[in-house]
């Protein structure tokens, strides 16, 4: 019985290796970076052990089409703010989000912040990540970049927080103080979409922390509940009925990129599904990595 189990596991591992071909691998200052091709699909991984660690994927034949479910969910930000002029992305991954947004909003300023220079290099080389007059990337810790931006009185219409996919969670990017800085960087119509944890104990802690800073927020989930996006706004959260109005136009804009925004909108919920007394994460108390087990 036990041996069968082991054999099955071994087979799984072997077949996985057979399916995906590693075309690039490097150990950066922060992590292992692996680029894997499986037929037409190319993925960026930060760890070999599990499939869950796919960081960013794209189809080589259709680089415009978004493959990843949670990246599609991030576009929920455009339901609330359809024409953002300045966009800040924390955590580059393969750069697919940046590429897509530039095609969608050619006049928007897009700033990508990534702590690991090797990730930027790999994104350029293997995922067609590009920079130009409107799209820039900076190697910096997200928290520091945002603190400096605050001093320079910068404002963003859309902040995308997506720095949480590796094995290690940057705990200082999960605290109340960090989210207060994020909120202060938002323009009056500004919106933040954050890719957050959906399974571990962190779910409750993160929910409580966002609530303490932004008040009410939307949760956006996919069918399998694998990912959860938190969508919060600087001002009062818009009425769900009201948002429905422009959905059709946005749907047409996003369709070529493989995003079905009507589906995404269906999953919008304001429901509070975490216990009332959940502690808030702060700079003083943020054992995120210990809670995510």
């Amino acid at each position: 019985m036990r041996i069968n189990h082991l054999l099955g596991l071994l087979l799984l591992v072997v077949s996985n290796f057979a399916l995906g071909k590693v075309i690039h691998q490097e150990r950066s200052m922060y992590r292992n970076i692996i680029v894997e091709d499986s037929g037409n699909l190319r993925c960026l991984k930060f760890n070999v052990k599990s499939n869950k660690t796919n960081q960013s994927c794209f189809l080589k034949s259709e680089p415009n089409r978004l493959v990843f479910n949670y990246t599609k969910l991030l576009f929920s930000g455009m339901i609330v703010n359809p024409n953002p002029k300045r966009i800040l992305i924390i955590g580059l991954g393969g750069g697919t989000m940046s590429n897509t947004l530039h095609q969608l909003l050619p006049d928007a300023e897009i700033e990508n912040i990534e702590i690991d220079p090797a990730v930027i290099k790999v994104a350029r080389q293997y995922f067609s990540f590009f920079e130009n007059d409107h799209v820039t990337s900076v190697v910096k810790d997200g928290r520091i970049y945002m603190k400096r931006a605050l001093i320079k009185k910068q404002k963003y219409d859309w902040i995308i927080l997506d720095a949480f996919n590796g094995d290690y969670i940057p705990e200082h990017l999960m605290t109340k103080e960090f989210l207060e800085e994020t909120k202060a960087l938002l323009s009056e119509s500004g919106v933040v979409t954050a890719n957050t944890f959906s399974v571990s104990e962190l779910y409750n802690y993160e929910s409580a922390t966002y609530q303490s800073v932004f008040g009410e927020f939307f949760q956006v989930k996919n069918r399998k509940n694998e990912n959860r996006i938190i969508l919060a706004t600087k001002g009062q959260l818009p009425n769900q009925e009201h948002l429905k109005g422009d959905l059709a136009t946005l749907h047409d804009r996003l369709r070529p990129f493989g995003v079905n925004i009507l589906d995404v909108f269906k999953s919008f919920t304001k429901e509070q599904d975490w216990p009332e007394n959940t502690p808030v994460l702060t700079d003083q108390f943020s054992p995120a990595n210990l809670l995510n087990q």
Partner: protein
Amino acid sequence: MDSRWQNRLIYLLAFSSGFSIMGVELLGGRILAPYFGSSVHIWGSIITVFMLSLSIGYLYGGKLSTKNANLSRYGLIFIVAGILVLPIALWANPIMESIFMAVEDSRYGSLLAASALFLLPTIVLGMISPYSVRLLVTHKEESGQVAGVLYFVSTLGSALGTIITSFYFVLYFEVNAIIISFSLLLMALGAIALLFAKAKSNQVLASDKELISEN
């Protein structure tokens, strides 16, 4: 109260100082992160400052132990160390804020901040090891062995301070609460050493008086 108890007390104190040093060092990463990030160079700054301060502390502690070494002074070192640890909890944010504004490069910013917060308390904590050796050694033949046991005890304290702080303390307490506890622990141990020294000198005085009256 004989010298056997005094030695046990010294080992306990050395253990606790090792525990506190590494506990504080570990929290250093958490304290600096909001202003200087969690890049590799943050740990570079913290470890550099701790190693540098310890080396200075060893030198000073050894020097101090050559003149009139006694348990009261030993206790005072702990009390001073405890007091110097407190500003980490009280003023870390304004200190880091001003350094953050003044220095753009987060490598040098974190190095400056780590120095401002940890240099002085760690220098004083570093003085404890050589001073302990001085108080423990009575014959030069045993000096190597005594130093060996002392390093064993204090480094074991460091190992436990690291693991317990990172595995458990951060899960249950706020950073400042842990720092303040380390500070109070150091001061309390220093006070115990002072009381012990006082009791011992009273005892000596009393036995001297007995001797005098018998004569």
